[in-house]
């Protein structure tokens, strides 16, 4: 058993040293392994329905709003104790860590091994997990994963130069990583204008002077039909960049959006990595309807996946996607990557040979479109400028960029 955190003994140690709380990165690490903890979520019904903590191994979760502890403490504590008859540790979570701190303290007063998640869902939502994909003498690649949203970005570093693909909202996290690595930001690359999260590409470009790149088709809002109001360099199919010892090729992969591109990165040791954005995922692929043109764009998805990807991307290339729907899609190292040849075999939504049937399948598996997705696209091309609170609200919950079912 590798995980020592959040076992009964570890919690007892935490308490002995006066620590009644853990931080999101510790909880995230603990959820990489099976654990015996009970997650007690004390937010109200609506917040709990909207999103909750999930991990590679999502622990048993009990939902009991904190006002039940205010109204009838004995009864609420009894409900918790009933679920932890084996004296398992309890991690208490709420929106910001205040109410859960209160509940954890009351539970401890009743002899329950309870710890508070510091900062609550706000901190959990803002947590970015950074882990190495490759660390070679000539290049390094990092996965930067916003775990609560299932959004993945990729950092390439070679000979002191860095590129970030699909940078997520908190740009300073990348600058911190690059500083640690002694690398200079050179390229900011978005695979497409995102609908589910706010890109920090334009902001990082302003902060660092690195150029921000987007395909011009995605610099027009698909609903408003208005052009972008921000600085960007136009990407085009076949364009090539050099980053230290790495070669980056731009491949136009329309379908999810009209201007979506993939970045095929080849290394001096013969490996290839393809950042697919919302084209191919480990499971499923990107939905074609977020621009309001699902019926027209679904056949384009087919041509991209079964035409462009088969023709242009080597079968041995590692696919590095922009999203996942479940942490179970990660490999044992927590990385969302798979070779393209394995994806053809293992991603069951790619088992099509007939375009008509594929389109029919896609159009009958379109999930609900969150209304804020239209506004997020405006933000990403400079048509709207939300406050911090508004940005938080736009990005609440998990991404819904893949097909359902």
């Amino acid at each position, binding site marked *: 058993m590798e995980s020592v955190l959040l076992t009964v003994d570890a919690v007892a140690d935490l308490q002995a040293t006066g620590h009644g709380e853990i931080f999101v990165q510790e909880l995230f690490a603990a959820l990489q392994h099976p654990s015996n903890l009970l997650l007690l979520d004390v937010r109200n019904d609506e917040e709990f329905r909207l999103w909750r903590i999930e991990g590679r191994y999502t622990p048993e979760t009990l939902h009991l709003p904190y006002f039940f502890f*205010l109204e009838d403490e004995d009864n609420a504590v009894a409900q918790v104790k009933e679920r932890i008859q084996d004296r398992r540790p309890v991690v208490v979570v709420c929106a910001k860590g205040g109410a859960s701190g209160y509940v954890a303290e009351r539970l401890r007063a009743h002899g329950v091994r309870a710890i508070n998640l510091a900062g609550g869902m706000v901190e959990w939502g803002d947590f970015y997990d950074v882990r190495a994909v490759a660390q070679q003498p000539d290049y390094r690649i990092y996965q930067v994963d916003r775990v609560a949203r299932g959004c993945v970005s990729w950092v390439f570093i070679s000979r002191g130069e860095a590129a970030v693909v699909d940078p997520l909202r908190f740009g300073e996290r990348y600058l911190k990583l690059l500083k640690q690595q002694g690398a200079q930001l050179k390229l900011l690359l978005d695979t497409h204008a995102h609908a589910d999260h706010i890109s920090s590409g334009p902001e990082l470009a302003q902060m660092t002077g690195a150029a921000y790149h987007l395909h011009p088709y995605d610099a027009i809002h698909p609903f408003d039909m208005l052009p972008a109001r921000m600085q960007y360099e136009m990407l085009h199919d076949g364009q090539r960049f050099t980053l230290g010892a790495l070669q980056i090729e731009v491949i136009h992969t329309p379908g999810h959006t009209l201007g979506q591109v993939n970045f095929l990165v080849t290394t001096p040791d013969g490996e290839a990595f393809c950042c697919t954005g919302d084209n191919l995922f480990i499971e499923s692929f990107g939905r074609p309807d977020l621009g309001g043109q699902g019926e027209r764009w679904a056949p384009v998805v087919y041509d991209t996946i079964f035409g462009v990807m088969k023709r242009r991307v080597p079968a041995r290339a590692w696919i590095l996607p922009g999203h996942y729907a479940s942490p179970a899609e990660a490999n044992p190292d927590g990385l969302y990557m798979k070779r393209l040849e394995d994806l053809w075999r293992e991603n069951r939504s790619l088992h099509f040979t007939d375009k008509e049937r594929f389109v029919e399948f896609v159009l009958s598996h379109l999930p609900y479109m969150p209304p804020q997705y239209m506004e997020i696209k405006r933000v990403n091309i400079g048509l709207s400028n939300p406050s911090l609170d508004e940005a938080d609200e736009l990005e609440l919950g998990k991404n819904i960029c893949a097909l359902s079912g």
Partner: protein
Amino acid sequence: MASIETATIQVDQELDVRGLNCPMPLVKARQAILKLDVGRILKVISTDRGSVKDFQGWAKAANNVTLLAQSEETDSGGKTLYLHYVQRTK
């Protein structure tokens, strides 16, 4: 929750919990309502946005209060205030 014009509500006591974060608005509202007689109405003034849904959930969970109304106001400094009108029923 009934949609009542809040200006017509006869408030018996006001509780100012501006600046306090969850769970304090509810903790203090609970203490205050228990000091009121049955039928009396408490107006809670909060700056915590999360208190809106929490007061709704609390009113359902508790057996001695009704949430008569909720509204929003902006104070002179431009800050949003969340107002809750709670009646003790038991």
